[in-house]
């Protein structure tokens, strides 16, 4: 391993899940348990049907292109990729090749890998239609055309990653970008993300800038989870190194393999010489159309703050720990919740504590998503304000929050119901403190000798007030009254 440098390039397919309809047909874009329920005549290739471009899908594709720093084309074109397969009844896929240029070319993405900044060059990103999903059984296969025609973004990187972990970190960053930019849920459990992985190895010490030294490229098709990407890359690296060691590496031809999830191996599919000729040509039913500067500008403006940017703000402006910042940005809805809480006036650190410890813990336990949480950012701010103003203690506040979630009622109502108003009146507390001290002169002596009797006094005050005395005020008054004696 130490003798070799690994080169990894990715082709990442991500469905755009945030459009109402498919990319060229008016069928619904969505996930349905019921097979073949979201289809229109075009999706089944009926004669005379024509593709109509979903402008929203193009907009989202351009947004992704801009985020990746790609160049956008002046004119939008689509092309046909011709092949016969039951997952696409037209028997061609409408996609974009690199000539004429697709929604984006030549960009880059810098991402965080174990605290280190890594940059991957993006060759291109293009918009195409997804194919149907097939399930194979021993004696038959089933086809679900719900997925056929769903807008799909394919991102092609240069071979700039050097380990399986780097590749996975890149994919995780991209997933977060798709989620933050509201392009896709990017949920691999729903099959929304699929990858092809290119792996080659070269001897260390050779010039990595010279493509001749890059070794023989092996493409691994259809890896459907990030775990699969990691395992497939590692398997392939080991396999290729073994060939080197055996001395048979040079006999290996450029080839396409597939990742087999059952055996955890890659399996030979075809040689580069047998590569399929897809006979691309420009889709004649979609007239080329100009992407105006105004449109581009409005798309650019619609790009929200992405995870990496938010993380930086959380650390530098809100002084959160890197750990907390990471937890908060992991899911966009959580980060949005946090930002809304702050925009309502909450202390950033306090809000972060509430969310990372209490709220996320609750969601985890209940297997819920934050969007389904009864407690709104405003309610959280109400609770935090009551603590700040001394109306309830921080201990009480946790009880309030749990009851709010249980009973689905406003925090103020809950506080009233539980009778939880905190006593913060100096005189009331002082009268009680004086009484407690008067009853235990011996313990005051013990306290002076260094014994810990202080907590006992606090406990007695709490007992007398049924826990409603403001704890910090109580402590302060006890100190004052002892000092007076």
């Amino acid at each position: 391993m130490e003798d070799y440098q690994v080169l990894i390039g990715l082709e990442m397919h991500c469905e755009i899940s945030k459009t109402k309809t498919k990319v060229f047909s008016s069928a619904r874009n969505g996930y349905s348990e019921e097979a073949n329920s979201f289809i229109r005549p075009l999706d089944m290739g009926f004669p005379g049907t024509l593709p109509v471009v979903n402008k929203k899908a193009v907009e989202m594709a351009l947004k992704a292109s801009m985020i990746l720093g790609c160049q956008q084309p002046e004119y939008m074109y689509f092309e046909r990729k011709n092949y016969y397969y039951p997952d696409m009844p037209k028997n061609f896929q409408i996609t974009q090749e690199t000539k004429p240029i697709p929604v984006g070319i030549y960009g880059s993405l810098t991402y965080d890998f174990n605290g280190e900044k890594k940059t991957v060059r993006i060759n291109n990103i293009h918009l195409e239609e997804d194919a149907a999903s097939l399930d194979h059984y021993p004696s038959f296969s089933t086809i679900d055309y719900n997925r056929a025609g769903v807008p799909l973004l394919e991102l092609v990187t240069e071979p700039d990653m050097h380990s399986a972990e780097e590749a996975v970190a890149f994919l995780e960053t991209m997933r977060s970008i798709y989620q933050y930019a509201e392009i896709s849920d990017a949920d691999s459990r729903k099959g929304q993300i699929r990858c092809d992985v290119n792996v080659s190895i070269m001897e260390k010490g050779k010039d990595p800038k010279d493509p001749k030294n890059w070794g023989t490229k092996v493409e691994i098709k259809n890896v459907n989870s990030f775990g699969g990407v990691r395992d497939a890359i590692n398997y392939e690296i080991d396999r290729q190194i073994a060939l080197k060691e055996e001395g048979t590496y040079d006999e290996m031809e450029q080839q396409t393999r597939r990742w087999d999830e059952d055996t955890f191996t890659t399996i030979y599919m075809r040689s580069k010489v047998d590569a399929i000729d897809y006979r691309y040509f420009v889709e004649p039913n979609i007239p080329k159309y100009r992407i105006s500067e105004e449109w581009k500008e409005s798309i650019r403006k619609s790009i929200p703050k992405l995870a990496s940017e938010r993380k930086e703000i959380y650390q530098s402006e809100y002084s959160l720990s890197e750990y907390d910042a990471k937890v908060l940005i992991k899911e966009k809805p959580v980060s949005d919740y946090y930002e809304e809480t702050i925009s309502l006036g909450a202390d950033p650190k306090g809000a972060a504590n509430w969310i990372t410890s209490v709220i996320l813990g609750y969601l985890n336990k209940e297997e819920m998503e934050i969007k389904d949480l009864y407690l709104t950012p405003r309610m959280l701010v109400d609770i935090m304000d009551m603590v700040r103003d001394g109306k309830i203690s921080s201990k009480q506040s946790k009880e309030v929050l749990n009851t709010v979630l249980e009973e689905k009622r406003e925090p103020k109502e809950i506080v009233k119901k539980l009778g939880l108003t905190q006593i913060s009146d100096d005189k009331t507390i002082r009268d009680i403190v004086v009484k407690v001290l008067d009853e235990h002169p011996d313990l005051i002596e013990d306290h002076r000798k260094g014994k810990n009797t202080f907590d006992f006094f606090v406990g007695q005050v709490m007992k007398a007030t049924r826990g409603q005395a403001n704890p910090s005020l109580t402590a302060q008054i006890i100190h004052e009254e002892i000092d007076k004696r």
Partner: protein
Amino acid sequence: MMEKGLVELHEELKSGKVTSQELVEESLKKSKEVQEKYNAFVTILDDAKGEEVTEDILSGIPYGIKDNYSTKGILSTGSSNTLKDYVPFFTATAIENLSRHGAVPVNKTVLDEFGMGGTGTTGHTGIVRNPWDKTRMCAGSSAGSACAVAAGVYPYATGSDTGDSIRKPAAYCGIVGYKPTYGMISRYGLFPFASSLDHCGVLTRSVEDAAIVVDGMKGIDKYDMTSWDSSDIHLYDSLTKDIRGMKVCTIKEIVDISMYPNASQELKEHLENFHKTLEHFKELGVEVEEVSVDSTLLNAEPSVYVVISCAEATSNMSNLTGIVFGPRADADNYIDMMKKYRTEGFSPLIKRRFVIGSYVLQAENKNRYFYNAQRVRRLLVDRWKELFKAYDAVVLPVGSGPAKKFDDDKDILDKNTAVLEEHLQIGNFGGFPSITIPDGFVNHLPVAINITGNCYEDSKVLNIAYALESTMPYKNQVAKEEN
């Protein structure tokens, strides 16, 4: 009755001299006679009923639909065995539009399989005969539509035109064939042949009727991105015979008899007749000039058409597998099912074109054939656009003479007259509005002239045709069988 034009029929219907139901019955009866004699129809809609007559000229009047238009609940075969049992569940936009105007379809007409042919002999229901002479072809691909309109089954039938599939059969059958600017009529529901060249259009017996029908078929369609808004274009209302001051041109390399040293008698007469027709323009106050177009460019035209149309067709027709629709073939697995269905279903001509189409798109051939064809297409279109800067239209004869005998195979091109036969395809390359009208007889058979103008200038093209038509006695002519 069915030999009359639309305006006249409309007046008769309005005045109550005849009912829509009576017209439909007459048209159905005529359909059966024509079917018997010329084999023009895939389906005759025996249960067609008259429609309410409104102010709309098209209302209550029967017409025919080329069988490559998708019609809901009605067999739509594209004249191919691959769709011999296909009954669509949606209707082409152009047909929907005609229905909205109250038009009544009475039959579906035969074409060359999927429009890929120019003879009217490759449809799965057999050859279509020319109503002027049964031993001759109608040309194609809108053979059945041309035959039926010429035989007086109804005043019009829809057609589609990828190379000359409306305008050539119109010429051979002595009627009018008009394809408007690309995208004026939605192609949604038209079985595609070559999408960048496919046009919807109509076959009629007069320019006036062509204008009325296309007014009824056209319109922007959200299901066809190449369609455009023509709501401010009213072809029928804009008709005028006053074209004084216009300038048209013809092309020396195509029309000069000296270009054809071995010209047949028919060709000579046809070209003479064409030049005589040009004289009529002078009566109309229109200037005619002969221009020259580089013959290298012109001679490349037929190959350009073959390359582009075959390439697009190969891809367009890959949806025909017999699995989702069409008669499913019996085999052990889906690949063999598809192969069997396609091998048995398509005629040899189409299969040959698929092979050409695949070949020219292959990575190693693409630049040499497909991209070069695109380049030459652009050059030809640019040259024609240049002509349209100086002239209102290009006028040329259609074909090398009247309808051919069945034993002349049109698909074996005579090198000498290839451009003469194929130049109408330039109208498809550029999406130009183009109309063919009869301009005389050769050998007792009709011949025709074509007028092609710049995109979006449909009214101008129709007016030139309308005025020219008025100087000749062929308006509303119905086929009279000589043999």
